[in-house]
């Protein structure tokens, strides 16, 4: 009697929970974990500047190529970005800089190219060329070119091999963690000031060959000296960049 009751109750319970309820619960649990994991992975992969910014390559009003001008012709970055060593902002060149070479009145290079029409118009009317900004730090953060390039941080550390780009491409995430990674350990990115605009310079290969650096032992020794002797300590407290 006693036993039978138990059995009938058991039957009632199993009507509510199907026989394979354990498997279903396990599958659901695994599904939730897998799904949650995938969502988390997706968010960390896609919702960070490494995905949202890197690779941004806007169309420009003039198909100006750094590969021709900085690479092939070997123009120094400061020929056009004249203020980068003296100002927080790296200026884009005004049309008269381009017209030094491309002005038809001076009978120069590709003076009648249709690709250069916006530059010629701007030169005549004084209306600026509508270049599209590629790199942008949010307005609540403060960035300064001068302090970086005068301390031996090369353009290549933050902009990639611009001298090989036909169109300027966003190469680095420019996120806060990216800034801090270097501020905590700047040494691998340091080089003598004269070489800041030499993007093809490779400290591993060229250190022993270049007459500028031959006299110092190695990049590591040079960087250590910069940190010790010239007291190079990139700050990491919040007010440095959020002022």
């Amino acid at each position: 009697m006693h036993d039978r009751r138990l059995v009938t109750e058991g039957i009632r319970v199993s009507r509510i929970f199907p026989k394979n309820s354990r498997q279903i619960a396990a599958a659901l649990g695994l599904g939730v974990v897998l799904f949650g994991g995938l969502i988390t992975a997706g968010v960390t992969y896609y919702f960070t500047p490494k995905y949202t910014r890197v690779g941004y390559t806007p169309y420009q009003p003039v198909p100006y190529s750094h590969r021709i001008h900085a690479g092939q012709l070997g123009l120094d970055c400061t020929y056009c970005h004249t203020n980068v060593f003296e100002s927080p902002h790296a200026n884009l060149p005004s049309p008269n800089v381009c017209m030094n070479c491309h002005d038809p009145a001076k009978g120069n290079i590709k003076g009648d190219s249709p690709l250069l029409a916006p530059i010629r118009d701007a030169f005549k009317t004084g209306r600026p060329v509508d270049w599209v900004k590629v790199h942008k730090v949010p307005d609540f953060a403060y960035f300064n070119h001068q302090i970086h390039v005068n301390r031996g941080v090369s353009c290549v550390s933050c902009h990639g091999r611009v001298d090989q780009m036909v169109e300027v491409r966003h190469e680095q995430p420019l996120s806060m963690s990216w800034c801090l990674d270097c501020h905590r350990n700047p040494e691998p990115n340091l080089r003598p000031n004269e070489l800041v605009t030499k993007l093809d310079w490779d400290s591993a290969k060229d250190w022993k060959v270049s007459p500028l650096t031959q006299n110092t032992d190695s990049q590591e020794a040079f960087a250590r000296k910069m940190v010790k002797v010239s007291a190079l300590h990139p700050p990491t407290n919040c007010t440095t960049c959020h002022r």
Partner: protein
Amino acid sequence: MKYVLIILALLTVLTVGFVGLRGQTSRQPPVMVFNDLVDQPKYKNQGESAFFADGRQMRLPPAGAVAWGRTPDKPDPGNLIDDADYYGLKVIPLPVDAALLQRGQRVFNTYCAVCHGGFGTGNGVATNYGMSAPANYHTDRLRQVTDGYLYQVITEGKGLMGAYGPSIKPPDRWAAVAYVRALQRAGNAKIDDVPQNLRGELEKQP
């Protein structure tokens, strides 16, 4: 179980298929969700203005303004009001030392060497692409012109050469002048100009 896995795999493939991988070239600006502080409505360097007719946020100085670092009442060298005040000078108004020449070398190699060549003979890289005949500095006429004239050529340009005043600051222009002078001197040098202890291999050459 199988279905759950298949659906998740499909979702993953679909997501990656639609939004791609990191670092892919994109023509669209990065998406911003909360934009208020990121793009503040204020005037920025080289920004575009809807208010001024010429579209610039950065305004030109009004006529008669004295540039920062130049004083109207102290006309000492390096502090003149107007570039034209320099054009008459016979010699460089700054002390010419090794530091100025090194600065000059950097300025020259940045701004002038593309056209005039590293040695100033007028055969820079740009001439391979149709740049019309930049001057050769190693001529009697250019050796005899005054330093102030070279300064004027850099500031205003001359003939087929554009103006470099907007790009190069006055002290750097003088540094370039000093370096051009050094090149001219080197192009016209005799063995006696080289100090005895530095001659080395030079003497053996004809």
